[in-house]
């Protein structure tokens, strides 16, 4: 185990090096570029033995990765924002074909207006594409997700592509000290990719076929079962990861002081740290505050959220997303989880950080005040009345 001072992008690239993909196809887009630059350097210096394909677009990046995965090769790509939207057709294609490709997405705002900074509207718009979606909080978790991702995605019961999301700039470009696992340990943890879902000269296949109304929905049902199966496989993989590397993760969510909390803020990504600090501060003033950080949006942690909130008086969701004309998508998902569990607690949605706008500790205190005292169902934090912000 070596320690290095790395950005989120660089940490993710280190994790991918340890995962030994055979084909990398990627197209540059801010703020993802560093991860593909590092990977191309690793291919150049021989520390990563992979085919690096310089595709001419994000659509081709994922289309190429699907072809490579169909050949039985472990494949990697990375993108962000407009690039994710440009390749959207291929997201559904990879998932429907059950190709366990891993992609890093640097979460970034989507045009218009143009903006290169972080929010999560890009990846959250693709929740229905059939991919597992993880959200990292820090560079260490980013590296560890990179290594765990293939083990989860390639599990035979799962066979589902995996999108690891890192908040643009806030995480992709921020440096911290990261533990880098040993090569031997990584190889012990993650064996080479073996699958029957591949081109086979001894048993030729017609792959990525059409299926009519009579069979199509059976394939879609199985696809759904595959993503659901990831719930157990994620926990099992994290246990194996802890056994080898000594770092334990907490499954689909990470709870902070939720056991006795009256007021819980649910969020995802790199803002969670500031939420925890704010909860600590409120507890010093006698307010029992807690935080749930969603680590996986798909499969969605329905039971985990209901369990964490079962004694809470009220909750809020802080998300960098809005489904225009309704509410934030995370809020919708959380409400569904609680409804299914029969929980009747007041909840409020807080939209913030769009286009990289700063969310301050004061903002989060205001959010908790809103949860405690009640507020609008959907709130754009920092915007009052006339909408001029």
């Amino acid at each position, binding site marked *: 185990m070596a320690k290095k001072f790395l950005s989120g992008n660089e940490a993710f690239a280190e994790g991918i090096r340890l995962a030994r993909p*055979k*084909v990398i*196809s990627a197209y540059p887009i801010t703020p993802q570029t560093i991860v593909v630059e590092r990977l191309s350097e690793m291919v150049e210096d021989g520390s990563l033995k*992979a*085919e690096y*394909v*310089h*595709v*001419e*677009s994000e*659509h*081709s*990046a994922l*289309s*190429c*990765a*699907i*072809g*490579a*995965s*169909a*050949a*039985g*090769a472990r*494949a990697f790509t990375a993108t962000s924002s407009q690039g994710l939207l440009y390749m959207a*057709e*291929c997201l559904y*294609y990879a998932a429907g074909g059950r190709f366990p490709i891993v992609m890093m997405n640097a979460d970034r705002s989507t045009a218009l207006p143009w903006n290169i900074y972080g929010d999560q509207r890009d990846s959250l718009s693709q929740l229905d594409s059939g991919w597992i979606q993880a959200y990292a909080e820090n560079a260490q978790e980013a590296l560890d997700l990179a290594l765990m991702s293939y083990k989860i995605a390639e599990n035979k019961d799962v066979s589902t592509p995996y999108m690891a999301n890192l908040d643009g700039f806030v995480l992709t470009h921020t440096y911290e000290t990261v533990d880098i696992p040993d090569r031997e340990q990584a190889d012990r943890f993650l064996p080479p990719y073996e699958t029957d879902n591949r*081109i*086979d*000269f001894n048993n*030729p*296949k*017609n*792959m*990525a*076929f*059409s*299926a*009519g109304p009579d*069979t199509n929905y059976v394939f879609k049902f199985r696809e759904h079962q595959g993503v659901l199966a990831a719930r157990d496989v994620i926990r099992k993989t994290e246990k194996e990861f802890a056994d080898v590397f000594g770092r334990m993760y907490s499954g689909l969510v990470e709870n902070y002081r939720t056991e006795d909390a009256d007021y819980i803020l649910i969020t995802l990504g790199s803002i969670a740290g500031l939420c925890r600090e704010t909860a600590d501060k409120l507890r010093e003033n006698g307010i029992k505050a807690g935080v749930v950080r969603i680590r996986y949006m798909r499969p969605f942690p329905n039971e985990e959220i209901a369990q964490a909130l079962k004694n809470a008086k009220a909750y809020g969701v802080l998300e960098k997303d809005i489904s225009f004309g309704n509410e934030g998508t995370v809020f919708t998902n959380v409400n569904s989880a609680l409804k299914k569990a029969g929980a009747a607690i007041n909840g409020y949605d807080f939209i913030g950080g769009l286009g990289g706008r700063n969310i301050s500790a004061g903002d989060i205190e205001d959010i908790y005040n809103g949860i405690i005292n009640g507020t609008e169902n959907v709130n754009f934090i920092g915007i009052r009345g006339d909408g001029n912000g």
Partner: protein
Amino acid sequence: MANKTAESISREEFFYGHKACAGCGGSLAVRAALKVLGPRAVSVLPAGCMSAVGFNFPQLCFSNNSIISTFAGTASMLTGVEAGLRAKGYKDFTAVGFAGDGGTADIGIQALSGAIDRNDNVIYICYDNEAYMNTGIQKSGLTPFGAKTTTTPAGHNIHGNIRPKKNMFEIAAAHDIPYAATASIGYLPDFIEKVRKASRIQGTKYIHVIAPCPTGWGIAPDQTIEIAKEVVDSGLWYLAEYQDGQFTLNHKPKEFTDVSAYLKKQGRFKHLTDEDIKVITDSRDKKWEFINKNFQL
């Protein structure tokens, strides 16, 4: 032109039992090419006629490894398949794409350009039936001047398609591709030999084969081959190659057959006026001026 007889290609079938229309030129091109490339060919076909007629679970009609790509993704998936198989240690296989005219010259041209630019070791075959036939005969970038399609109706004001075909052969050549060729299923031995030649060249290979569609062209199913010959004999298409920076003409008709006769056999051109036919003939003559000047014989 290559001297190739039907007896000398494999009797083994790799694409059969499919639901293509009677007289389909595209399916003939795919069938013949796979006979040349054999069981170690991995075919990539985008959403389009060939995938629609051959890839309906559980009736799957390729006996070699085959996969459907996204419409725009023939070339990029080919790249991935080739890179993936090579990275897995496979040797002696051929990654071959079969895309129609729309899938090649319109929605797939960016991915194709990328593959040629990278010089990926793949064969890309465009079977050109001159419109979006799978969706019901809409104009593509390779629909010829004057052709009536369902989106270029022939009326009083406009006589079908108002633009000439994109020149995909020379677009591919302009990338300085290792090998590019034109062909027609009316000259099948020439096409077969070009596929064989392509399979022995390292890097990207592009073959553009005219493959008439009786349904879309308004001809009888048994006229496919005849019309595919006549498009060459009338000089409206030509058999050529590009290799080592040099264009070569493979077949020079002594004199062209009547353009008007070729056009009037087809429902899609029935409405053309003498004036329209003169535009087509003049454009043919201009093209041949260029060919005679720039192509080796």
